[in-house]
């Protein structure tokens, strides 16, 4: 209203409403977010769609993005297939054991490295993190040879058994989990241990009765991380296990369900979706811990 009147000195200034600008920026943000959500969610959604289709509908190929005749036959077949259940069992066993081992190794190590400053603890901590950067793709060949050799040496079947993976996977999980825990332990004020020492607690008691409860969010985050990594592993099991009854889920689905030229995509997608389910379910319920595990490594580092 007063804009028309007060143009005393004509300064070339943009008179756009700042509120309108902000609203427009917000609108564009939502537009882009929507686009990216579509990009990121298309594959899993497509997995779901395909898993509900019959083989006939898939091979007809008329409307790939829509299910006209939904069926849960694929799910039934997969969930009753002994092969698949074996995969699931192997994966679960391996993952749970690896998580247990990881936490048993990481937590005391993190406590020692962050709290009990002994000679070289700082360099050791950084060194441990650096070894995490040595990729599995470098190690799998020498490890393979080592295990072959151990088998010849001791007669124990180190190749082609799922429990070998339980020995190897911690190399992937322990360094990063230790790093996360060091970060969390580091953020606990020193006065807490001193108070505990005053109260008469030894180092082990300080760890179990004070640190672990206080650092519980970090522990949960590290546990989730370890589980997800163990569950999703593909290279090591592919290299080390070959018999169908020893395979873990990712390898099992990729190798057995893709037989020759005939791809039973309905089953493959169902198997893949079920294989992705455990990490997704954990994520759905514990999303904040999941994210904390990721960001802890970098922002606290």
């Amino acid at each position, binding site marked *: 209203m*007063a*804009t028309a009147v*007060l143009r*005393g*000195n004509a*300064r070339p*200034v*943009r*008179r*756009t*409403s*700042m*509120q309108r600008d902000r609203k427009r920026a917000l609108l564009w943000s939502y537009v882009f977010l929507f686009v990216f959500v579509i990009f990121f969610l298309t594959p899993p959604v497509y997995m779901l769609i395909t898993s509900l289709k019959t083989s006939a509908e898939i091979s007809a190929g008329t409307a790939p993005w829509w299910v006209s005749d939904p069926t849960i036959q694929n799910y039934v077949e997969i969930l009753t297939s002994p092969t698949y259940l074996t995969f699931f069992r192997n994966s679960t066993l391996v993952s749970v054991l690896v998580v247990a081992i990881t936490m048993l190794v990481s937590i005391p190590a993190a406590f020692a490295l962050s709290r009990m400053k002994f000679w070289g603890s700082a360099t050791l901590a950084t060194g441990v993190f650096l070894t995490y950067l040595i990729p599995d793709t470098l190690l799998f060949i020498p490890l393979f040879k080592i295990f072959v050799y151990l088998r010849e040496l001791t007669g124990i079947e180190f190749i082609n058994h799922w429990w070998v993976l339980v020995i190897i996977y911690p190399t992937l999980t322990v360094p990063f989990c230790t790093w996360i825990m060091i970060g969390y332990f580091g953020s606990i004020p020193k006065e807490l241990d001193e108070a505990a020492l005053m109260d008469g607690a030894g180092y082990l008691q300080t760890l179990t009765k004070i640190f672990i409860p206080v650092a519980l969010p970090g522990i949960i985050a590290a546990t989730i991380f370890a589980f997800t990594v163990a569950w999703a592993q593909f290279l090591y099991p592919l290299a080390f296990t070959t018999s169908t009854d020893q395979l873990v889920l990712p390898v099992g689905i990729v190798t057995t369900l893709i037989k020759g030229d005939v791809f039973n995509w309905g089953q493959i997608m169902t198997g893949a979706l079920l294989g992705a389910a455990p990490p997704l379910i954990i994520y759905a319920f514990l999303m904040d811990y999941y994210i904390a595990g990721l960001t802890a490594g970098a922002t606290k580092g």
Partner: protein
Amino acid sequence: MAQVTLRKLTKTYDATPAVRGIDLDIADKEFVVLVGPSGCGKSTTLRMIAGLEDISDGEILIDDELVNDVPPKDRDIAMVFQNYALYPHMTVYENMSFGLRLKKVPKPEIRARVENAARILDIQELLERKPKQLSGGQRQRVAMGRAIVRDPKVFLFDEPLSNLDAKLRVQMRTEIKRVHQKVRTTTIYVTHDQVEAMTLADRVVVMNAGLIEQVGAPNELYHAPATRFVAGFIGSPAMNLIPCALEEVAGALRVRLNGEVGFAVPPDRTARYRPYAGRSELLFGLRPEHILEQRPQQEPNQEVFEVALEVTEPMGMETLVYFGVNGVEVCGRVNPNAGAQAGQRMRLVADLNHMHLIDDASGKVL
């Protein structure tokens, strides 16, 4: 010329009004302080002037130009934040020259202006340092330097001294005043500390709950407050406000505090107060420095009364005495050698030349 005018300026957050239609005229080169308790709307007002908050209603004019929809960078203003808001990754020089660099001002001119501002604030040796290497007071100077360099029409200060310790605060207060005398730019300064307001301002704007209670020179606000809020807010220790009744006795007016204590209203006020005779929901206002120990010579309109002292606080140059009247704790300032003792009765003098009478219901000073 850099006048600032606020007309019916309003800001509402969702359903909560933060600023409820204020009008203010600030003259060129004036140093105006917005003061009030937390939540009174002073910071919101400042941020609206800066363009950092949207205006719900009303107008802001800088130099007679409506700036409601003008973005901050085009308003020709500079702001000093409470937390300094220095760019941590830039040196002091880069911090101060940032605005000019964005405007593509030629380098020699930038250097001249930065060095000039640095000289005014005595921070020349700090130009190559980063903010984290500076103390709080130094950072505040750099923040001010950043504002001075821009040579704006208006300086805006948002509680700049709140983060400093008491001693530094006093030092920086003088610093700010000195800078204002040198760089005569219109300044709008926000603080919750009424001492800062009184010492720095040409005019003080007391705000409360989104409205302006009173605008005036510091002395005016001190000696002639318009509302109960201003009377109680300005001055430390605060003005004593005691419930009383105004009686008319034989043609003269008397203020009755309680059964024991009562004062005669000075004759020059009689006409002003007469319409309110007979009222009993009034407040009697008297500043502590106008409650003194009994002296051998008594001035006109000073009355003696006796009370039992509850607490005494020896301050060195004076002693504060506290006693209760009508359930209100009253403070007086007496000579340290007057023999004031807690628990003992003492004769005090009330200087009624400086009394105030306030209508409790409306809050207005009569």
